[in-house]
């Protein structure tokens, strides 16, 4: 990062400024008198953006093509679903109704901790993290790389999917858990249709994004990107590649975990779809379309693509059906023609703006 490039895209100050503007503009949305229903849709876009940031971190910067970001996301979502469900249950009526229909006559022991909201939140954060740490150790200590990681994560994701589907008495199977009431904590009820929830989601999104960006600009971030570009060389320089990979894998998993928690607060619903293969790959698609080396791009792409999908679905049934065709086409085109996504294109365009008459040879300096 020598700051020699004249491309404003690579200027760290300009980058931070761009992020502040982005989150500032997004924060203003509720003040325009947006309908509560529409506001909740925007709240879920913030969750999708978090997932895109998560995919961008692990894949774009860490070089780990994880197709299993749905694992921490789904685990957190299920823990949060259980917590919110137990907030609705009372000591007189301790068993959620789906358990009764599955012939469970007492609350199973794995559900007991969720009586306590704090414990439930700790589990929602802790369970996925522990799983990611163990899984990360297994993969990266074995020096698995590239496509192997993709396949292993995909297999684990599928394993969790079938468990969520099959353990009906505990997870309500295919139907999923839909807690009847909004989440309450510290005496405050978080109404999913409120601007409060929108700001919570956006705040967490801003926090994880800026945190990731800060991390990437440190020496640690440089090493993470180095393991992506040439793991063997980093190993020869005496660094533990596995350590950096595990940390970035768990860190990205933590972002997905937060997304899972906020998703259930927003939608009051969790089902095995959280563990579905296509959903985890969509996260990679959002990151790829936005530009795999840009958190900013990932956020914008996640919001724009989901917005497009909703809008097209509103126009007609035909457009809704055609959406996946369009998304697939966009994805193929981006991978083939724009490997660095919209952000890469933006960088190219910014390269034409000359500052202070310096030579505009655009060597990539600081990844955004």
């Amino acid at each position, binding site marked *: 990062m020598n700051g020699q490039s004249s491309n404003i895209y690579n200027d760290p100050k300009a980058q931070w400024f761009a992020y502040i503007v982005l989150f500032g503009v997004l924060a203003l949305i509720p003040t325009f008198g947006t309908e509560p229903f529409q506001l909740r849709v925007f709240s879920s876009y913030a969750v999708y953006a978090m997932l895109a940031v998560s995919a961008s971190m692990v894949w774009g910067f860490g070089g780990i*093509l994880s197709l299993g970001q749905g694992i921490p996301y789904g685990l957190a979502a299920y823990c949060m679903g259980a917590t919110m469900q137990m907030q609705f249950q009372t000591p007189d009526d301790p068993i959620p109704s789906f358990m009764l229909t*599955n*012939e469970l006559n007492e609350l199973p022991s794995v559900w007991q901790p969720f009586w306590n909201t704090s414990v439930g939140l700790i589990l929602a954060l802790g369970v996925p993290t522990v799983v990611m740490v163990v*899984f990360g150790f*297994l*993969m990266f*200590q*074995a*020096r*698995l790389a*590239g*496509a*192997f990681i*993709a*396949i*292993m994560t*995909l*297999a*684990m994701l*599928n*394993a*969790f999917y*079938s*468990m969520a*589907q*099959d353990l*009906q*008495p505990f997870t309500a199977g295919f139907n999923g858990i839909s807690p009847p009431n909004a989440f309450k904590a510290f005496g405050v009820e978080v109404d999913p249709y409120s601007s409060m929830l929108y700001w919570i989601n956006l705040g967490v999104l801003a926090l994880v994004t800026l945190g990731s960006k800060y991390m990437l600009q440190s020496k640690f971030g440089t090493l993470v990107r180095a393991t992506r570009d040439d793991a063997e060389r980093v190993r020869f320089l005496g660094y533990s590649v596995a350590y950096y990979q595990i940390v970035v894998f768990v860190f990205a998993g933590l972002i997905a975990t937060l997304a899972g928690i906020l998703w259930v607060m927003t939608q009051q619903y969790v089902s095995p779809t959280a563990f579905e*293969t*296509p959903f985890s*790959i969509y996260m*990679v698609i959002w990151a*790829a379309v936005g530009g795999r080396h840009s958190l900013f791009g990932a956020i914008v792409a996640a919001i724009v693509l989901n917005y497009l999908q909703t809008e097209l679905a509103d126009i007609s049934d035909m457009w809704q*059906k*055609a959406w*996946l*065709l369009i*998304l*697939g*086409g966009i*994805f*193929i085109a981006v*991978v*083939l023609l724009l*490997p660095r996504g919209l952000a890469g294109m933006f960088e190219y365009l910014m390269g034409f703006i000359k500052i202070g008459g310096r030579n505009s040879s655009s060597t990539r300096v600081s990844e955004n």
Partner: protein
Amino acid sequence: MSVHDFWTPFSAGPFVNALFLGFTLGAIWLLAALGLTIIYGTMGVINMAHGEFIMVGAYFTFLLQTEGGIPWLACLPLAFIGVAILGWIVERLLIRHLYARPLDTLLATWGVSLVLVQGVRLIFGGEPQYVAVQPHALTQSAELAFIHIPWLRIFILGATLALAAGTWAILYKTIYGIRVRAVMQNKEMAASFGINAQQVYGMTFAYGAGLAGIAGAMFGGLKTVFPDMGLGYIVEAFLVVVTGGGHLFGSIYSSAILGELNSVFSYFTNSTFARFVLFVLIVVFLRFYPQGLFPETKARR
């Protein structure tokens, strides 16, 4: 499901039956993985659209039967040719431009699979279709004492072994196979000896896709045909490839072992739990044997 009927106690007859079923299951996975093995082993390309090639093979068979009235057995080679052409086109238009970026082929082929699934859903609708298996005897079950196995599964076992043997013969007994193996070992060296590596890759991808087509024609008869069916095979197929080490013999052994293990676990518990245990076991296994069961000692690309 309650905890009490979760565990099935051991009993000799049904257990032996489960062992036989395990072999036929392994054959199904091998059939799904055969094309994938060839493509991955030769080109290092992870073809995420492989499951969708299987799906297209199944729909192609369905179409041949309903529109053309072609008997099922005759559909098998036609499905091979049809899907091989599709694979050739995909290689030509897409994969060819991405050889320098192997991980990106994974992403691009996932894009292809999205387009194929949704395209088929738009044309045929989402409801399941059925492929009629002829001759009728194949839809019956083989009964021998306590063994009870559908003939179709036995047919698939035989057909899979025949296809594997055929693939082996092509790779090791023909000039084309020598070229493929040369490109596999050292692309530049092979090219400097006058082998057209581009062409070898194109043909290999088409052949792998064709094998998926045959698989689709058979799976269509085994289960129902629907746009998302590819997803049901792809994960197991990939696991067969990586546990086997990415070459033909490795895949044959690993599919048999994985099929058996899955069948035994399913016997004692249930199929979903078996799937979970098997996947976790494979992850742990690859921790200690990242090269798979049969690592290839000779130099590869």
